[in-house]
């Protein structure tokens, strides 16, 4: 009886050791397999402005409230228009800063006179909630200089971006953390 017990004990020990080795093997080989496929710097999420269709989902899909997505103006592309289709509501009675004329629901766009007839438009990021109404206006009737970007001082860099999951045009992509922004530039021909 005693002998049998020790025998079964050694069999269990054998199973244990075998299992240990079986499990340790993949854990130790995984880094080797993935060594060529791992990246020390990692990724962050960013919006490709050329794919974005300004669907307004960025405002509500982000895990942050307000959204970490903000609008920016690519100044080299901007036309500095007096009638800015990103700033003024369609059918606005006058081209001025009056609230009833503004397209932005939070009043986040600052209109500053530069010289006749040009106006500079900058975004107050503390007010912007990434609704992309101005982006759509600028893309449809202007130069398309207003575009959305994920601001990395606000983004918490989720493993899967909640906006990426909802984005209808797959515009939210992983970019290398060393170049976290995708600037919209003036295309030179």
């Amino acid at each position, binding site marked *: 009886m005693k002998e049998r017990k020790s025998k079964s004990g050694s069999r269990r020990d054998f199973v*244990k050791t075998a*299992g*240990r080795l079986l*499990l340790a093997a993949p*854990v130790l080989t*995984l*880094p080797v*397999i*993935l060594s060529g*496929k*791992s*990246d*020390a*710097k*990692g*990724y962050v999420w960013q919006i490709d402005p050329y*794919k974005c*269709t300004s*669907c307004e*989902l960025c405002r509500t899909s982000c*895990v*942050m409230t307000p959204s970490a997505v903000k609008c*920016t103006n*690519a*100044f*080299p*592309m*901007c*036309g*500095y*228009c007096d009638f800015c289709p990103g700033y003024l509501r369609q059918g606005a009675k006058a081209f001025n800063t009056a609230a009833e004329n503004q397209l932005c629901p939070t009043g986040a766009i600052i209109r500053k006179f*530069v*010289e006749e007839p*040009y106006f*500079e438009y*900058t975004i107050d990021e503390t007010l912007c909630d990434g609704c992309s109404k101005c982006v759509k206006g600028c893309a449809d*009737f*202007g*130069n*398309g200089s207003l575009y959305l*970007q994920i*601001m*990395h*001082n606000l*983004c*918490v*860099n*989720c*493993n*899967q971006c909640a906006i990426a*999951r909802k984005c*209808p*045009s*797959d515009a939210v992509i*992983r970019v290398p*953390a060393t170049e*976290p*922004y995708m600037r919209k530039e*003036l*295309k030179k021909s």
Partner: protein
Amino acid sequence: MKKLRRLKKYIPYFIFVLLFIWHSVLYAQQQRFPRPEFEGGYTFPTHQFLNQRAPMWEYMDVAVLVGALMVTAWIALKKRSRQGLVWISLFSLAYFGFYRQGCICAIGSVQNMSLALFNDSYSIPLPALLFFIIPLIFALLFGRVFCAGVCPLGAIQELTGFKQVRVPKSVEMVLAVIPFVYLGLAVLFAATQSQFLICRYDPFVGIFRLDAPYTMIIFGSLLLIVGIFVNRPYCRYLCPYGVLQNIFSRFSVKHVTISPAECRDCRLCESGCPYDAILQSDPAPDVEKPKQSFKGSIIYFLMIPVLAAAFAVILYNFAPSLSVMNNNVKLAREIRLEKEEGIKAVSKAAVAFYESGKTEDELFEEERQIIGRFRKGAPWVGIFLGLSLGIGLFRLTIRKIRTFYEPDRGRCYSCGKCFKFCPVKIKT
């Protein structure tokens, strides 16, 4: 007539010129208003984008992870102090939970692994790889010390589990199947680039960020409220990483023991574990019927490959319906419905698709490929599920003769709640 024929050869050139003009018209639309030339010395401002904290800090997280794991292992195995485990849980909750806001976490890193292994376009960030591997190595050495005091999701539940309601063994067994299914599906969806299921249904990340969609808040608070009575509900009935921890911990080199010295078989710890993870003393019965039980376990042993094959077939056939979790497949179905049944595609994805200028054939080809990938991956998930179920059932038929109380190495979270029940004390 002859003249016309001579002109015919110029038609391609004509079309080319026409296209060129058309293209330049299109191009001009992008820059509708010319860049103004300012006279008053205006300089174009450049927008200053702010950056995140440096990637170096991610390695700080890895260092904290290793440190916390070592401290937890020391407290649980050597020091045997429940108090110490509570303190390290508090620290992990504060650091990985509220300071790091639940990302990066080992549970979610399973998906990064899967995505990196089966997709060439993605290379895994090194911290994510380390977060996946290091807790498993510790599980192989010391049992589930990661669950005990380092995982922020475990910590928040550990610290809010005040009452202990025992779950009937049968219910516990059935519910314990869910994490295996969850793990299998999460790996499949990540490998096919469809979803990060685990991150999407992470219950407590909303609490860590103090900001989340209301569904997440409701799910998280419900789990916490349930957890007051049925401790650690997420760990026991959902956590997919817990499945790996469970398997690895079964073969651990060292593990937490209930008694600091030799167990005296006094039964005092029997009701001490809220997770039902104490294996009771079960001495050999007087009358044995070894033949019958042996036959039963042989049948169950032979069932293992049968179950694996059956599940593989079932999941292979389920692959197309599983693939709906992929956004492209969902879109392709919508577009096809519009084409065949005339139901208008109104989703934002459909609008964006028509705007993008991609053809329907391209989309359908993409859909076919994704379903093909699901067909390839789903049987493996089936094999995994079948093997787990088969081995689980087989293990039920084996009776290990035991003359002492010990923790079930797979299910024990090394939380240390049983320490105080053991009357055996050693003076240090």
